[in-house]
């Protein structure tokens, strides 16, 4: 692909909210800018969460390079989409995240310490060191533990919504996924079931333009990802995912419709993955610096900062303090997390089943009799 074409075809969206092709009857147009925005204090909270998330992201990339965590998948550039979405949801709503939803977890109230514990895989990790970094989960927040296969959480979110319908609980379930997942089996199955059963589900697609090395236009011939909803019998909306208010409005109104019994919504939040897919990825192999530079001008964090400064809600001293506090919080959490003991070797056999089978008990006796091999922890 010629670099110039890449830049043109991948130019950032300009309008803060764009409705899908106006001819599409299933399309929902989001509320115009200004109406239903986050209140000033909520906007400040959103900014703090975005700063904390950016600080964590940047630090984790370097922790991985230092060998202190095994892996990391940054959300750089997707903060506004995640925070805006999570702020529009209620405590009883259920999240079915993919593995890049750090800011959703923070906004839901997951503690930074428990997130860092998961990245390290220490004995304090709620998921007991079972999965590679980024695959955290918090039952208290209805934030379901993520997996690595792409799209599998989409049908699960629909199933949980069917269960909520059956129990007449006025909640929504939210499936988080990226542009790549729109090609997966479970995207089709999930949206199809959601349409048929009219479930209270929000399909929150963060279109970050790249699925590892594959650009959005090679993922599908569709003009937008949102318009796919129409074929399943419900509405889709495109929203500028770098605008925290636009995302908040879109999710809040999708939530309202869902709880009212008016069914699911597909939201395509257009963002850009400013970082690598993960610490194992080198994006220079497949995209140009020019393209990244173009999108960096629309960094959601800088955008919100400018807005707050213009509105007189933030000055430089306060901003510096917010960043300083985030760094200090992270440093202290990291120190605490790194002093947690490692997982006990015999814990490897827990949680396969509710109760261990005779075979697992036999394996425990074997394991207890063996010396622990070197190379434990995140290595």
């Amino acid at each position: 692909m010629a670099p110039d074409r890449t830049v043109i075809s991948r130019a950032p969206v300009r309008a803060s909210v764009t409705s899908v092709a106006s001819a599409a009857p299933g399309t929902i147009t989001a509320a115009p800018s200004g109406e239903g925005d986050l209140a000033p204090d909520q906007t400040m909270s959103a900014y703090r969460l975005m700063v904390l998330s950016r600080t964590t992201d940047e630090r984790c990339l370097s922790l991985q390079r230092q060998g202190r965590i095994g892996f990391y998948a940054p959300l750089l550039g997707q903060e506004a989409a995640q925070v805006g979405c999570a702020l529009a949801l209620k405590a009883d709503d259920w999240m079915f995240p993919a593995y890049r939803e750090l800011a959703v977890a923070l906004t839901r109230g997951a503690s930074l310490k428990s997130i860092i514990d998961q990245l390290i895989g220490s004995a304090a990790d709620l998921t007991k060191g079972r999965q590679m970094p980024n695959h955290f989960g918090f039952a208290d927040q209805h934030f379901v533990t993520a997996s690595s296969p792409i799209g599998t959480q989409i049908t699960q979110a629909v199933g949980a919504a069917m269960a909520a319908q059956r129990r007449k609980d006025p909640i929504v379930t939210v499936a988080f996924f990226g542009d790549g997942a729109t090609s997966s089996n479970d995207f089709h199955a999930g949206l199809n079931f959601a349409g048929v059963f009219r479930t209270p589900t929000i399909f929150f697609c963060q279109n970050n333009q790249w699925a590892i090395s594959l650009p959005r236009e090679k993922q599908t011939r569709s003009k937008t990802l949102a318009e796919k909803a129409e074929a399943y019998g419900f509405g889709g909306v495109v929203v500028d995912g770098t605008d925290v208010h636009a995302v908040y409005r879109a999710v809040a109104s999708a939530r309202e419709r869902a709880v009212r019994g008016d069914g699911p919504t597909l939201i395509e939040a257009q963002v850009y993955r400013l970082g690598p897919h993960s610490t194992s990825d080198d994006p220079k192999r497949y995209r140009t610096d020019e393209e990244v530079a173009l999108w960096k001008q629309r960094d959601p964090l800088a955008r919100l900062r400018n807005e707050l400064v213009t509105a007189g809600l933030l000055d430089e001293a306060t901003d510096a303090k917010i960043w300083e506090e985030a760094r200090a919080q992270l440093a202290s959490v990291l120190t605490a997390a790194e002093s947690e003991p490692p997982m006990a070797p015999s814990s490897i056999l827990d949680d396969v089943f509710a109760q261990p089978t005779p075979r697992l008990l036999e394996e425990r006796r074997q394991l207890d009799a063996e010396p622990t091999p070197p190379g434990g922890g995140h290595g």
Partner: protein
Amino acid sequence: MAELTLVQAINRGLAEAMRADPDVLVLGEDVGVNGGVFRATEGLYKEFGESRVVDTPLSETGILGTAIGMALYGLKPVAEIQFLDFIYPAFDQIVSELAKFRYRSGGQFPCHVVVRAPYGGGIKGGLYHSQSTEAYFAHTPGLKVVIPSTPADAKGLLLSAIHDEDPVIFLEPKRIYRAVTGEVPDGDHRIPFGHARLVREGSDVSLVAYGAMVPPTVEAAEQLASEGIQAEVIDPRTLVPLDESAVVASVEKTGRAVIVHEAPRFGGFGGEIAAILAEKAFYSLKAPIVRVTGYDTPFPYALENVYLPNAEKIAAAARAAVRTG
């Protein structure tokens, strides 16, 4: 007690579980109005309505994915896959998600789904309505794998599956859905997992078989008895958890083992039983362990009689074992 076929016993078990607990529901293709292509869910739609007997679109990954979501939310879904042969679009949901939810979340998100699927040959179904692929599931940590061979076991194991806390792959031997009848206890009759059934006692050779292979194995034992060979028949009933001690104890007594399944031999579940016997009963063995299984081919249509183990093949294997030592 009632005299029921195996599929009627399953139907009875589902209805009783649904009456007892409003969180139990069934979902799958054609399970509602039609009562299932094998009639396993007959009458349930009428009694419990469409919110508890859910006719789904034709998508196995959709069935399993939504069942998992329901289970995470607190319901007790029983998903029907029309034929085990069609489960593969849901394989990712089963092995990557269902099997691993409890483990990967550190116990925060247990996920209890019962997956019912008719399996096995002998119904002229060819490659895609006949396979016996229990080993795929038994090989995946986190799944329990159950295969009944009698109506009473079918109901008792199904009720245990529905009351379990873990994912259960419940494989139903469709060839004997209606070919066997038997007394089935009324009410909440449960058979615990991990307890083999001693089908027939014997002292000369142990025949281990499950599901639709139990009737021909019993027939083989009867033939052998008329020849003076006393065969013991053991039905593990659950492959995971496996009642290893029952199989080992039997072979310690008889010194000979014949393992029967209709799945292909290579990598089949019989290999696991043989390995356990080699590890734990080696010094009791008087003859090599023998497996009587399907061939290492896809499942054929016209020649399924050639492919499937039968009483003659099982008896011949047992005779050979007895002759050896």
